[in-house]
């Protein structure tokens, strides 16, 4: 039974695309067949983050409108055999998508893949509502920062009212992925802690991705971090999050505060200076 998972947030720039690529890659590395679908029509970037930008011929809009067949538009990852990408159109806008057309594409993808990861655009307009429309479960990507938490709360409300499952009286499983977390700042009281965000949003925690230069390096190279640098803390956190999605029970370890020699010797002063 295939699963449709939307990666969403409301706010832009919190790490939806990075998380879609990383979770998609990790699920594929765990042996599942996975397609990651870019719903950000007009501002596609998943192709770039996944290193397939030079191979895009057809896109989601072409398939929705019947101008291309689904297999023509799917791009198979060169490194992970079971991972595919369905890119968004760069020249159209979100109005080119219809609910009926997206529903048909999702149904076709369900025949071919174990996991369909829908990378939502920011906002709460048509692109975002269509990305979540057919989801069985949702990963809500949130930064420990007031505007991101507020927008996530709004998106959680929409997942509970605007999805097809919600309209049928069924539940959309929701998971919180806390990204760009800085343990040192949280320890100093300058950033909301994991518990603060969990208490406010009240959905289960899927994982914590620490703020890390490794994440930027991976997208610079167009290679999902779980593949490029599997030993890095961010890659391990994504890998564990993916395995939790597959039903494994793995305790969540909060990122550790990494303190240099100066801050060890002089405490907080060195951090501020």
């Amino acid at each position, binding site marked *: 039974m295939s699963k449709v998972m939307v990666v969403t947030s409301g706010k832009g720039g919190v790490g939806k695309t990075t998380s879609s690529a990383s979770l998609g890659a990790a699920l594929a590395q765990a042996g599942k067949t996975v397609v990651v679908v870019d719903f950000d029509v007009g501002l596609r970037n998943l192709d770039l983050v996944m290193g397939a930008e030079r191979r895009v011929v057809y896109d989601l809009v072409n398939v929705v409108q019947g101008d291309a067949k689904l297999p023509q538009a799917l791009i198979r990852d060169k490194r992970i055999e079971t991972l595919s990408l369905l890119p968004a159109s760069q020249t159209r806008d979100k109005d080119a998508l219809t609910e009926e057309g997206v529903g048909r594409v999702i149904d076709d993808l369900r025949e071919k893949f174990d996991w369909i990861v829908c990378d939502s655009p920011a906002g709460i307009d048509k692109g975002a509502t269509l990305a979540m429309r057919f989801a069985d479960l949702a990963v809500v990507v949130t930064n420990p920062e*007031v505007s991101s938490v*507020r927008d996530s709360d709004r998106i959680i*409300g929409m997942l509970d009212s605007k999805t097809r499952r919600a309209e049928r009286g069924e539940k959309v499983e929701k998971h919180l992925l806390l990204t760009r977390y800085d343990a040192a700042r949280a320890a100093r*009281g*300058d950033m*909301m802690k994991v518990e*603060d965000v969990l*208490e*406010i949003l009240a959905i289960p925690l899927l994982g914590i991705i620490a703020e890390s230069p490794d994440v930027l390096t991976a997208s610079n190279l167009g290679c999902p971090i779980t593949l490029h640098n599997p030993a890095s803390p961010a890659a391990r956190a994504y890998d564990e999050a993916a395995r939790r999605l597959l039903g494994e029970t793995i305790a969540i370890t909060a990122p550790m505060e990494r303190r240099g020699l100066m801050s060890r010797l002089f405490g907080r002063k060195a951090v501020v200076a």
Partner: protein
Amino acid sequence: MSFLSFFTRSRSAPVARDRLQLLLAHERALGGGADLAAVLQKEILAVISRHIAIDHDKVVVKLDRGERVSTLEIDIEMPEPTFARH
């Protein structure tokens, strides 16, 4: 940051948490529906304008969402004494 403020600096994360909790309690109650303040303003003004000619540019509406009590303050400048008689 001055030398003194470094030692007396209060932490911002608890403030962020408390502000969010308060705000979201209100936003969830609204359920993404119409803005309550706007609806109240419109209906209250409609009632008043049945009796008084109001200049809508001279109406000030303030909303303060508190933890226990929220207040909606509507300040209407009364025109010169020309009360309509019914």
